[in-house]
Structures are given as C-alpha cells and as structure tokens.
C-alpha cells in the first residue's frame, strides 16, 4: 500500500490514508458510507457501504396484501413516490390483466411527471449544494414546494402519497386542481431559464463538473446504470418510449441525452444538464396530458375488492426519475404476494462510483455522487 519516494536524504515512507465519508456527512445524500482511499487529495479507491437505511421492504411485502404494499413502496424512493407506485400498479395490473379507465392513465401520467420534476429539482439543487452553491438549492426548493402543495391538495400528503392504487387512483382531482397545475406549468417553464443562468452556465460550476467523473456508455451499460445517468452518457434510452407502458405514446416529448457540450460525453455536467432538459420535457408532457385528459369518468377500474392475482410471475420496469425501476412479483394466487423484488436504479448508479471517481480529487467525489442522484431509501430498501 505504501508509496516510497527516493530522496537525497533517504527514503520517505508515505502511506495512503483511508477516509470514511459518512454515514454522517453533509453530502452523502442520506446515510451512505464511502470508504475512500486517498493519496493526498487524489482518490485511489472508493468502496460504497450501504445498508444503513435497510427497512426490510421486501420481507414486509411478503406479509401484507397487495394493496397494503403501496405505502411501503412509497418509502423506497421517497423523493419520487408517485413514480414508484405507478410502476408497482402497472406491474400488478399487467399480472392480473386489468384494463384501466383512460382518465386514470392520464391522472397517473400527470402526477408521475410532476413528481419527476420535483425529483429532478432536488437533484440539480443538491448538485449545486455539493459544489458549494447554496442559493440555487433554495430556488429549486421554492419550486418543488409548489409541486408538493399540488400533491397535498390532491391527496393530503406531501411526500409519501399512497395515491396511485392497483386498478386506479385513490381520489379524483379536487375542484380547481387542474387550473392550479396549468398555473404551475406556466410559472415553472420560464424558471428553468433562471436555473440555467444561475448555475448551469456558471463558469465555476462548469469548471467543477465538466470533464469530471466521466461515465463512458459501455461502462454504464456493463454496470446496469439507467435513467438520466445513462442518457447523460449519450445513449437515448428511455422506457417511456423504448418499453412502452401506460399512455406515453400519446405525447410528444424529446429524450435529452448528454452531448459533451462543456467537456466530454458522460461527465457530471452532462448528467446534470440531462435532468434540466428532462424537466422541460416533463412539463411539456403534463401540459399535453392536461389538454387531452377526459374530464368525466371513473377513477377506479372494476376489480374485485380483494386483489388476488393468478398464480404466476412477472417482471415489469418503468422509468422513474432515477432510471429503470423494476418490480419482480411472484404470485401464488393468494392475496399476499409470495415475493416482491425491487430493481433499484440508484443501487446500480452507486455501484459504478469506484469506476468513475477513481483518480479524481476528494472534492470531486461529492460532485460525482451528487450527479448520480442516488436515494438511499431506494438503495437500502
């Protein structure tokens, strides 16, 4: 381990230092521990240690009914609960072969895309925080707050919604919600310009993120990295288009990818900027969905009171703000799932950190971690 330097005065024995970043550290985005080996400021190795937030999600799900799983699923990726529930509901419905009313599909797309905006706002805000810019973070929270207010109006909860159910959603939109959402989209779209001026094109921010932590597309694929992180590496892969679920084929939207505009393809800036662009696209989807949505109709499919999927198994993946969120469900025909496995996109994202952060400096580790946008609730489950 030691590095020996020959000097005129003799041999100086230098050692690498092991540094434990976390679990109590301001910028590990939760309770992640990184065991970092450093040679001065340079990182020679990073080992992520996870499990500090393990809550036995999968085991819990084996003991409750399919409906009762949803609050647990809310708590996996607590930044984007709507998207989690969406993925689970779609999976169970496909296993049971349920047809969903058209209105429900629209409602789900609207809330999922709003939640995607909220999640990406948090992501870009915390990247700013990791490079030391405090103000953009609070600007992002100001706008995220408005989405949370919308959700509060919709289902009473601000973070863990339990809104999307198997076979429908819990309530219809309250009166005035659609207008408020239009208002938010009108307000939000120009705000993206503000973030770009304050943070995206800031010279220091570009210096800190461009060419840093480059994730080549082949490495990304071999580690199973998905979502904005994979798109940041330049691959146009989005399950909303490539493995269609729900009604995403009815909307026009782009899939932004990293282009290496400020440095190389797949650097932190690309991953950051893909998220900024995705917020624009999500806002576009929400607007189209609000325009096209049928105003009348039921928000529940006609399904038996007790969900009892037929014997069998299914794996279904959806596009959460962090990437491919997969649910693997085995049913033994009873109202209680035999096994639920969640394929977490954040888990694969954090697994590649040794590959991309090695050789960079200690300060860069925080930026790279921030640009991967991990949520420990989902990694540890």
């Amino acid at each position: 381990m030691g590095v020996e330097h020959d000097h005129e005065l003799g041999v100086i024995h230098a050692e690498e230092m092991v540094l434990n970043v976390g679990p109590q550290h301001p910028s590990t985005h939760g309770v992640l521990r990184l065991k970092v080996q450093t040679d001065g400021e340079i990182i020679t190795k990073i080992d992520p240690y996870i499990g500090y937030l393990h809550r036995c999600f999968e085991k819990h799900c084996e003991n409750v009914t399919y409906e009762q799983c949803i609050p647990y699923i809310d708590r996996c990726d607590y930044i984007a609960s709507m998207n989690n529930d969406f993925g689970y509901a779609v999976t169970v419905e496909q296993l049971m072969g349920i047809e969903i009313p058209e209105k429900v599909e629209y409602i789900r797309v609207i809330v999922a895309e709003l939640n995607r905006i909220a999640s990406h706002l948090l992501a870009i805000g915390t990247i700013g925080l990791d490079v030391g810019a405090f103000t953009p973070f609070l600007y992002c929270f100001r706008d995220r707050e408005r989405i949370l207010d919308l959700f509060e109006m919709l289902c009473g909860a601000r973070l863990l919604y339990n809104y999307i159910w198997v076979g429908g959603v819990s309530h219809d939109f309250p009166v005035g919600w659609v207008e408020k959402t239009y208002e938010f989209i009108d307000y939000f779209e120009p705000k993206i310009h503000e973030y770009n001026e304050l943070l995206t094109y800031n010279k220091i921010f570009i210096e800190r993120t461009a060419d840093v932590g480059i994730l080549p597309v082949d490495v990304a694929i071999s580690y199973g990295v998905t979502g904005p992180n994979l798109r940041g590496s330049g691959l146009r892969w989005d399950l909303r288009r490539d493995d269609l679920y729900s009604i995403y084929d009815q909307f026009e939207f782009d899939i932004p990818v990293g282009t290496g505009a400020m440095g190389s393809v797949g650097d932190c800036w690309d991953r950051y900027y893909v998220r900024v662009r995705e917020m624009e696209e999500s806002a576009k989807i929400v607007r189209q969905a609000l325009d096209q949505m049928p105003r009348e109709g039921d928000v529940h499919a006609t399904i038996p009171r007790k969900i009892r999927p037929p014997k069998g198994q299914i794996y279904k993946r959806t596009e959460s703000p962090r990437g491919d969120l997969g649910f693997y469900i085995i049913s033994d025909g009873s109202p209680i799932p035999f096994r639920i496995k969640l394929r977490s996109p954040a888990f694969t994202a954090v697994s590649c950190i040794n590959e991309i952060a090695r050789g960079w400096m200690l300060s860069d580790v925080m930026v790279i971690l921030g640009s991967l946008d991990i949520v420990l609730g989902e990694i540890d489950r």
Partner: protein
Amino acid sequence: MVDFFLEKFSQISWLTGLPDGILFVLAVILIAIPIFLFLAVNALVVVYAERKISAFMQDRLGPMGQGAGLHAGKWGLLQTVADTVKLISKEDIIPAAVDKKLFISAPFIFFIGSFITFVALPFNQTIVAANFNIGIFYIVAVSSVGVIGIILAGYGSNNKWSLYGAMRSAAQIISYEIPVALSLLTVVMLVGSLQMQEIIKAQDGVIWGFLPHWFVFKNPFTFIAFFILFISGVAEVNRTPFDIPEAESELVAGFHTEYSGLRWAFFFLAEYANVFIVAGVASVVFLGGWQSPIPGFLEGSGWGLVWFLGKAIFLIFTMIWFRWTFPRLRTDQLMVMCWKYFIPIAFINIMGVGLWDLFVS
C-alpha cells in the same frame, strides 16, 4: 495613538508618579479594548447582515422575531446576540484524542493574527492605533500569522477532515499572499511610502475632471491591481468561491470541525475580523480610505470615518454577494488561478505602473 495617550497621562497628576513602563502598557490596553469591542460588534453586525442578505437573495426571510416572550427581537435583530450568548454558555468540549496544547492555543493564535492587523488600519484622519512608517508591509506580514493557528487547529484536532482543511488552508493563504503583496506594491510605487496615512493623503483631488483621485482609477494597471487584491483577499479569508478549507459539503467544517463553544467563537470572530481587514485594506489603498468621493464634500474626521466604513461595508457586501451566488472552486483550480494567472498579471502590473508613471503621466 500611544503617544497621544502618554501625553494625556502626563497631564493627570496622580498618574505621573507611575513608571513609564506601566503607563505604556496602560496606553496599549486603552487602544486594544476599543479594537476588541469593534471586532465583536463587527462580527455581530456582519453575521446578522450576512444572514439577512442571504435570506433576501434566497427568497427567505432570515432571522425574524416571532411571538411574545423570549424571541430574537424585531426582524431578528437580536439573533446574533442570542447566538453569542449560546456560544459563551456552551460546554467547553476538548475531545480526548486531541493534542491539548495545540488544540487550546490554535483559536487564540488565529485570533491574534487578525487582531494585530488592526494596529495599522486607519479609520479616519486621526484614529489609527499606530501610524508607523511600514504600515502596509506590517499588514501583509502579520496577516499570515493566522495560518499558524489554522495549521495547529488542523494538526492538533486529530481528525482527518481537520487535517485536510488545514493543509488546504495553509497552501491557499500562503499562495494568495503573493498576488496581494504584489498588487499593494503598485500603489507603494506610486506613493513612495509604506505609511497608510500617506497613501490615503496621496489620493486627494480629482482625476479626469470627474472621478475621485483614488488609485483604482489612477491608471489601467492599478485598476487591475485593485481587482487582483480584492479577489485574492477573498481567497485569503477563505470565503466562497474560495472556501475550500471549510467546504462544508466536502470537509464537514474543515479545520474547526472539532471545535465548539467559545473556542469556535474565536475562530468565527477572527474570520469576520479578517473579512473587515480585507475590505478595509482594499478601501484604504485603492478607494481612498477616509477621502470623500467628491473632493471638498463632507470632509473632516467624523465624515472620514463614515466614508471609510461605507467603503469597507460596500466591499463586505460584495463578499457576501459572492458567497451566496457562486459555487466553490477545487483546490487545484484555486492554485492554478493564483500561480498561473494572478501572479504573472500582478508582475506585469508592477512593470506597467512603472512604465505608465514614467511615460504617460
């Protein structure tokens, strides 16, 4: 200032019997106490201003008074006072694994480093603790004393984050001393004196008919020198975008990670004192110190104090503005900026000022 007090003492009958040494110490104490009080008030005001200004910049309210009973006063005016009381009354924690001597002495050395700088800083025509002939040289020299405190704190804390912070800080402060000194040298060349009051007096009058004859407007090279001085000054006091030694998202709290209570308060006090020194030196050397922006308008020693403080406060506001706008640089980028850009430009500046003085003016 010491002479002034000694002269006063000689007029007081019961003091004249005392030995000269004691009178001298008495005079020094009489100067030191107001400086200390000024430092404390400065920290209170600047911290409050920083919290309020950052709040306005971030769409927040900042400290606010709320409800009846014990609260932070109207608009939270008493917030920093409450913070101070909290810091003073906190338990004094010395972790078991630290090197006790170094740990205890570090905050005081850091504080002394900024405290003694005030000796040469002229507040107006008369208020200056010691107007000695090497004023500016003295300021450059003693402002590096603080770095010893930082290294002791980082080394003595027995904490890897502290060590990182201290090493970064030492490298940063020592590097940025050079462009600061070189930019100050341009003015010294023009004035031909190191004395602070002489430098201010040389900035009297008007230039180009409308601009005050401050060195920042004197010629293009001093204009650049002012910005190099100010930016390097921001780097020397470890503030964003150069707050690498304390980078809270990387190093937790840098060299003062293990400190709390009164010891931490001393670091804090000294940091805000350093902020004032950077602003003060920049306004004395380049912005005319106590000179009025319109020559002949509102002059005199009272207004001189107002002008000086006004200029310093404006520069402090700029630093706060920086802090809440910019991200932070990386250590190597910071060094590149200093050694590859600032120092060569500062050298060219010195040459340019000399040539300009010879041929143009």
